[in-house]
């Protein structure tokens, strides 16, 4: 199976079996270890259809690992991920490949294929799965590029010729081209100027409204999380957790996160260094 599997997934106890509710994707008691380093610990998250969930937390807390675990790019050391009630660890490579056509993933640096033009990048999933002619695929590509505010003239360009914001938008167009049920965004606004960040936020909202997709976004940009999300989850690095403490520090709405009394959550939301300054020999 083409996954980065730190360990084989363990059997999950009976109470954790799939529930055919309107929950589209669920992580149930998921743990991920890389060697002796524990990155995720006992994470349980259920995302209902149509919801936009933002996963926030400081760098290194395992946000991206969680996102990749949700689509089976990383297999959990323990626990289980279920998509539409189907456990990913019970699927063979072919089933998993088929299932992934229902996901769209927008990578942090867009992860466009350097060797292809923008048109071929966006058309790639169509050509791969629907086996349609290039000309027909390009017609759909033009539509998708227009949705993310890019002109058809960028189709002939290579990714290296694009700006960071354009690359992210091409990445979004590629993720949208198969009309997925679930869109996953890995740090969609990182490295962009405030205006382009706002453009990307509006695109995410527009995409949700136009395509009725469920979205999970990993970010440490609080403005973006508050603007886009219906629900926010905050993770904390396992190394700084107390024994038996949940890695999910917060789970609630954007207004609740702003009113949170938890010191660590409030510190993150307000962007305050607090006692972390002492780690670098500050005050």
């Amino acid at each position, binding site marked *: 199976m*083409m996954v980065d599997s730190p360990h084989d997934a363990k059997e999950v106890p009976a109470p954790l079996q799939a529930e055919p509710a309107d929950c589209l994707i669920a992580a149930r008691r998921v743990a991920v270890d890389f060697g002796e380093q524990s990155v995720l610990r006992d994470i349980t998250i259920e995302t209902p259809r149509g919801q936009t969930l933002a996963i926030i937390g400081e760098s290194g807390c395992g946000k991206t690992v969680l996102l990749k675990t949700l689509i089976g790019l990383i297999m959990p050391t323990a626990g289980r991920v279920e998509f539409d009630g189907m456990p990913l660890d019970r699927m063979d490579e072919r089933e998993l490949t088929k*299932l*992934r056509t229902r996901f769209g993933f927008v990578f942090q640096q867009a*992860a466009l*294929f*350097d060797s292809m033009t923008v048109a071929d990048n966006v058309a790639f*999933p169509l050509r791969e799965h629907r086996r349609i002619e290039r000309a027909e695929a390009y017609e759909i590509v033009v539509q998708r590029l227009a949705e993310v505010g890019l002109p058809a003239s960028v189709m002939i360009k290579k990714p290296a010729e694009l700006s960071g914001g354009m690359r992210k938008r091409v990445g979004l167009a*590629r993720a949208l081209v198969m009309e997925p049920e679930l869109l996953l965004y890995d740090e969609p606004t990182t490295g962009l100027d405030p205006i382009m960040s706002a453009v990307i936020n509006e695109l995410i909202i527009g995409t949700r409204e136009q395509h009725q997709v469920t979205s999970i976004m990993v970010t440490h940009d609080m403005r973006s999380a508050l603007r886009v999300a219906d629900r926010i989850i905050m993770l904390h690095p396992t190394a700084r957790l107390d024994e038996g403490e949940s890695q999910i520090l917060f789970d609630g709405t954007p207004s609740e996160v702003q009113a949170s009394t938890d010191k660590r959550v409030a510190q993150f939301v307000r962007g305050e260094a607090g006692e972390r300054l002492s780690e670098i020999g500050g005050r």
Partner: protein
Amino acid sequence: MASQDITTSPPAASDNDRWRAINDQIADLGEVVVQTIEEIGDITIFAWRTITWLLVRWPSRDVLFSSLHQIGVRSLPVVALTGTFIGMVLAVQAYYQFRNFGMETRLGAMINLSMFRELGPVLAATMLSGRVGSAIAAELGTMRVTEQIDALTSMGANPIRYLVTPRFLACLFMIPSLTIMAIFMGVVGGAFYCIYVFDVDPYFYFNNAQQAAGAWDLFYGVFKSIFFGAAIAIISCYRGFHCAPGAEGVGRASTVAFVQSFVVILVLDLGLSIVLDRVYFFIWPGG
């Protein structure tokens, strides 16, 4: 004073230190052995998955042709050039030895036989692993580091089928042509130097060469090259797929791909030469 120092340290403690050092050495060696075995196992599984994907679905014509062009056609000039020089170097190295015995006209037999059986395939494989193998490892390594391989997987495209199988097929299909080119240019280079520089009689040169090296020798070289091509593709793709993060990781993947491919080429060369000689004597016992 020195003798006092020696006597003050208890002999039991020094023995313990020595044993601990020996134990550490053995443990380190054991770790290297275990890692090597694990890596061989991983590469074998990787090769098996590549072959099973080939049985399930071939790469698209566009992707395959692009790999054939990149790996085969663009390697031809450098293989031809190095083949020519190797043929000429063989002539230069052997001429004076052969002349001492009055056997200059036998140079063609020696050069052609060496090129057909050994130097042609090994030279083509070495050039392929240097030019193509490292490039494959660096390209796939960069794709790993920049999450392009994850992107492929996330879009439901198997990276082994999409990235490895076309490169594997291209290496497999193109290395026989490259080997034949290396052999041909080596033969031409050797003949040119012997005839035009050392004034060897062309009639006897080619007559002896024709008698010494034949169709079996050509098959011998080309057959070996197919295994070399497969090894280069698998090792290089594996190294790219398992590239460590950062520029250093990509550079290392590229270097390790070349070094490992070269070592495997030589090991395979020895093994296949022994097998093919046995096959020859089995088919033609009197030969």
